[in-house]
């Protein structure tokens, strides 16, 4: 007779795994990647390739030689970090800067804390902010879309959000500023300047639908962020339409879609309970709008997410899911 295995229940598993989830996120990012390659051509391919490869390599090297643990560089999480980092960089950034950013993302953002599952801040955003502070000029010169074969030499310009903030600083009215802006449809399709992967709202939304369908994430964080930004900017806009840009403009520009759908939803750095997710998401929405409209930077999504990442342990501690049987029955 064969020897029987004795273990505790449950005896079956959903076969969900970290690689399956991570490669699901990568699949969800592919439409946006395709659109970005369409707009930014070879530059997009170079920075994406170098970011993904260097993130995976750094993860492997650090795990194998510094931490001396079994490398898990192919579980998909390093690739996701690389992709997301590339998506929030301008497509004309030199490769060495991309690699430096990847080292900051994986090394400082992830591995110092003990690897996947233990990092308090979103690694890709740590990488991006590191680059943003280290190389402010390179990180704020964005190439015009449509120059497929240009990389470092691409002609650059200002993003809609920086145009907005500069013009507002010069006391120009919103109605005048908006005449020079791309139409809402163009914004939706991503025909604007910006970080390489953040422009195409529609492609990012396709990814959102895919991730919701595959149950990789729930609606709570992305939809609440978008709704909060919409309500906040709409009320500002209603209060003073000449000083505050319309809500759709805010929703479709900058890194909001990318941040709300792919970065704020990072498992490790977002709260666990549904109610906690809502608080976190509202916080991100409010801080984003505050930075955009009242702060010194034209864009604030990455800071908003990092700030709320910092609140996540506190939210987890105090915001508990509703327990079964907690409500007194009438």
């Amino acid at each position, binding site marked *: 007779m064969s020897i029987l295995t*004795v273990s505790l229940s449950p005896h079956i598993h959903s076969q*969900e*795994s970290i690689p399956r989830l991570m490669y699901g996120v990568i699949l969800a990012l592919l439409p946006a990647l395709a659109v970005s390659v369409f707009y930014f051509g070879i530059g997009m391919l170079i920075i994406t390739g170098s970011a993904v490869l260097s993130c995976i390599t750094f993860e492997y090297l650090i795990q194998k030689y510094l931490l001396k643990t079994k490398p898990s560089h192919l579980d998909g999480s390093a690739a996701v970090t690389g992709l997301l980092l590339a998506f929030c960089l301008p497509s004309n950034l030199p490769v060495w800067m991309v690699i430096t950013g990847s080292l900051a993302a994986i090394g400082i953002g992830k591995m110092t804390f003990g690897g996947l599952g233990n990092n308090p801040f979103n690694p890709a955003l740590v990488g991006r902010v590191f680059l943003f502070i280290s190389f402010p000029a390179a990180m704020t010169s964005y190439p015009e879309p449509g120059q497929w074969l240009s990389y470092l030499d691409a002609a650059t310009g200002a993003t809609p959000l920086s145009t907005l903030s500069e013009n507002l600083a010069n006391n120009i009215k919103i109605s005048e500023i908006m005449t020079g802006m791309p139409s809402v449809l163009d914004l939706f399709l991503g025909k604007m300047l910006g970080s390489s992967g953040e422009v195409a709202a529609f492609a990012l939304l396709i990814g959102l639908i895919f991730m919701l369908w595959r149950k990789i994430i729930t609606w709570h964080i992305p939809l609440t962020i978008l709704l909060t930004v919409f309500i906040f900017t709409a009320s500002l806009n209603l209060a003073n339409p000449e000083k505050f840009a319309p809500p759709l403009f805010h929703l479709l520009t900058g890194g909001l879609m990318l941040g709300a759908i792919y970065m704020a939803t990072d498992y490790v750095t977002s709260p666990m309970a549904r109610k906690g997710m809502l608080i976190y998401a509202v916080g991100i929405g409010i801080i984003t709008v505050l930075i955009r409209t009242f702060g010194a930077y034209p864009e604030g999504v990455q800071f908003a997410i990092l700030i709320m990442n910092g609140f996540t342990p506190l939210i987890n501690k105090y915001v508990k899911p*509703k*327990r079964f*049987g907690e409500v007194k029955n009438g």
Partner: protein
Amino acid sequence: MIKTFTMGGVHPRENKLSAKKGIIPLPLSSTVIIPVSQHTGAPARILVNKGDKVRTGQLIAEATGFVSANIHSSCSGTVLKTDSFIDSTGYRRMAVNIQVEGDEWIEGINRSTELIKDFSLSSGELINRIKECGLVGMGGAAFPSHVKLTVPQGKKAEYLVINGVECEPYLTSDHALILEKGPEIIVGTRILMKALQVNKAIIGIENNKPDAIEYLTGLAAMEKGITVMALKVKYPQGGEKQLISALLGRQVPSGGLPIDVGVVAFNAGTVFAVYEAIQKNKPLIERVVTVTGKSLSSPSNFLVRIGTSVQTLIEAAGGLPEETGKVINGGPMMGKALNSLEVPVIKGTSGILVLPSSESGRNTPVNCIRCAKCIGVCPMGLEPYLLMSLAEKELFERCEDEKIMDCIECGSCSYTCPSSRPLLDYIRLGKNKVSLIMRARKN
């Protein structure tokens, strides 16, 4: 809209291999081992000695105390010994080993299959007869039925809930029983309604069993106060608290019992046993057991005498396949893995599941990535990831604050975890320690 419970839940593959199979009575084996602790509560006290002749249906061990149950012989023959035997828990427990010599029943048991609809006993007499016959919950927990039927002072039963959900993958014993013994189950329901003095009963069945829903709905249409409700498939809907939440929208309070929300719940198999106890005077000596597994040549539903070995059941379903890695008493989500096939079928055995060795292992656990899927699937609104790490760090007081004792051990968290973490293993450990702490505090 079709109902289900609102909080958490998962959708494991159903794999109801024996769903379209009728109930086959299994011939008596040569010996039976009848444990005296088949139920929640105190073990029964053995009344027979080595060498005694017993007959089928004879009382061989009597309940000791209120939360305990009588045990009857499931065959006629000679008592070989009363000794400790390995049971489905893996521990040695006292049992009566009987050499089977024919099938001679004691007098007074009606063995015909004729449907008897009318009964005249009072509520107290019904409960007493149910107690005499050794009835326990047949869904798995094996809680003595007479205890459930005795409503504590100050509480009032309003609804009788009949559990025909059978949400565990693979298992089909209740489904088969409903299809074959529908009228008896309806009579059993009426008996329980009278015993509890309620005038409303709801039978909950998941809509992956449309034939059972249709059949019982037709039968219940002629009865006053009995409704059949189809439920959307979701595990663990067969959990008492989840079922009550799905059917009535009431949440049993933390640490409480269904009676706290005016409900008493019974499994469909128990209801049939109630019918037989009252109308046929038949003690609980046999039950329907699903024997199943993808590698078995003929997964089946057997009518089995209590005390028959698992080995006998598996042989009847085509024999133990090569490359078998695990044999489970119960379903894949909550069942217990057996370490021996000599283990007997008891009152709470609803199925025997055979898994090939390729499906018997576990994935290697990795870091928690805080995906919160365990929170999303927990039907009790707990935080399994937190309970596991608290139990791991031996912070048992905090486990208690985080409501670890509310866990129903459905396994949805471990099932879902993408990092394959042994969440429920640690939660069980925590529950064990917390219940010791709670008991120590009381004393």
